[in-house]
């Protein structure tokens, strides 16, 4: 799989600061192809989360364009963006963000419910996904009854159960201990290598960066290192 899943051109995001405007992103160009595992890294304030949010349609650029799976997000209304996130994207958040009043299984079923998948079908798929991630026996528990690592697995199950075009993970290991992080990373690598899931993660965790196939480093709102882009540029030069 190497079709273009994400295409960013001249992406700029300026926030209105208290005294002066804050330039979170300064003209980013980024392509992500299907099956890639990309880590966006850099110090705090470098713009990695902002870039992830723009790709996920959670924020709108001040300038530039974002295309996801061939759809230009700039042109979509709030409701259309909701539909885009619902049908094409999977999110894994730093704070897990599970719905506290639903069980683990219901959390995994949640997006399928929004999509209108029939009850029996979504139950079967959700249970299968929990089992694949090794927490099949925890389906009846609510988030408050699960450990951090278990909650993050439920969040990943929820993100992947609908076979999204792209999995976006924002600091997925930030609240996990190193042993649990290692398990999570094995899982992400497995999903990427065995299932061909395209993953873009914003992180400053070296363990996460280490397993990503492609590392994109940002500083002050600009890409300062992207091995794939450099190789592509070199190839074009030859």
């Amino acid at each position, binding site marked *: 799989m190497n079709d273009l899943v994400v295409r960013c051109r001249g992406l700029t995001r300026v926030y209105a600061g208290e005294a002066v405007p804050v330039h979170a992103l300064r003209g980013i160009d980024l392509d992500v192809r299907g099956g890639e595992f990309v880590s966006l890294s850099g110090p705090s304030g470098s713009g990695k989360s902002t870039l992830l*949010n723009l790709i*996920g349609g*959670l*924020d709108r650029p001040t300038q530039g364009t974002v295309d996801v799976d061939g759809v230009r997000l700039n042109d979509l209304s*709030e*409701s259309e963006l*909701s*539909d*885009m*996130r*619902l*049908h094409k*994207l999977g*999110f894994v*958040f730093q704070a897990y*963000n599970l*719905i*506290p*009043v*639903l069980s683990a299984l219901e959390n995994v079923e*949640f*997006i399928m*419910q*929004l999509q*209108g998948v029939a009850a029996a079908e979504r139950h079967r798929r959700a249970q299968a996904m929990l089992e694949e991630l090794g927490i099949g026996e925890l389906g009846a528990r609510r988030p408050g009854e699960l450990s951090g690592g278990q909650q993050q697995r439920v969040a990943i199950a*929820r993100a992947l159960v609908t076979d999204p075009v792209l999995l976006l993970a924002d600091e997925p290991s930030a609240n996990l201990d190193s042993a649990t992080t290692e398990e999570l990373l094995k899982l992400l690598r497995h999903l990427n290598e065995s299932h061909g899931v395209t993953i873009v993660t914003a992180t400053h965790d070296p363990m996460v960066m280490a397993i990503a196939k492609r590392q994109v480093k940002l500083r002050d709102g600009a890409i300062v290192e992207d091995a794939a882009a450099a190789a592509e540029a070199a190839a074009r030069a030859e």
Partner: protein
Amino acid sequence: MPVKLLVQLSARNLLRHRRRTLMLLMAICVAVAGVTFMSTLIRGFQYDMRESAVENLTGDIKILAPGYLDDPSIEHSFALAADWQPDLPPELLDGWAARVKVPAVIMSERETRGVQLVGIDPEQERISFLADARYQGERLASAADGRVLVGKALAEQLETDVGRRLVIMTQGADGLNREAGFRIAGLFDADGTGLEKAFVFTGVGALQKLLDADVVTEVSIRLRKEPVTGSVMKHLRSFFSGLDVLRWQDLEPQAAAMFAFADAAVFIWFLIMMGALIFGLVNTLVTSVMERVREFGMLRALGMRPGAVVVQVVLESTLVMALGVAVGVGVGVLLTLWLADGIDLSQWSQGVELAGMRSLLIPRMELADVVMVAGLSLAFGVLASLYPAWRAVRVRPLEAMRR
């Protein structure tokens, strides 16, 4: 829109904060039960007032000679055939009574009072308060009975009693005074109302003889159904051409105005109670929404449309309101059933008499009132949730999740 999911989320969010939901439910229950029960009291007061007005010899419809209202004397009377019957269907007609009612002076050995002397046919008076009044002594035997029925309160004023004689003076059809002695057949007790002092009854035949006039001054008609329809009035006006055919509202305008005001009072009372409740409901919902801004942001980040978030908040309000309304109406109905025999207001008998009521207030439940309370409460619940729902979707997902 996944309605089942939204209902599930709303219900579980309500259960998540059990104490808060319980407090809110109790507030709704108290307000709705209060409004439901209070409306039954207002209706009870309203219909008691109407019954008092109608039974006060007025009837639903009264036929009078022109000019009688301005000068209620035998001069403004009309003849009625002995075998006359109102030409109304039996399912509509409850009863009727033809009377002679003239002003008179009544004298005992010790006191003198001005009264309305009413000639009646006792058989016909089942439509007036005389049917339910309590008696000391005897009732009148027939239309020809030449004895009198005196109110208990009037008898006390006149310092007289059953079996004693009274002298009554009134004006005959020829304009000359008539004076006759009457023996008291009995004293009627009309729950201490002004009726006891206002009216003295004798047989209509005896009074016609005294007045030397074979006429009546009024025909009072009671109907089984209300309100009086235009077709009934048209029919009677056609039959009694040249006479005044009046509804009870025309004859008792003050009671009619109070009757109409009671309809508004039910609604005003509802608005006051619900107004107070809505502020509490909005406050609780806003608190609940603001606590979950991050959660709403996450739901939207996952793909829930803004409209679905609005529906979820509205559903939460509607669910708690529906439960509160159901329990509140139930409590209101139980309270009404518990007090179905009436509330004794005899301690304040003079005050309630002034308001045109009897001393026993019987709650009256009307389905339309219950439906209005339930329906409007739910509508208010939905309205109250719109602002919190707007607050929930106003924040963009990213901003919400950063909180």
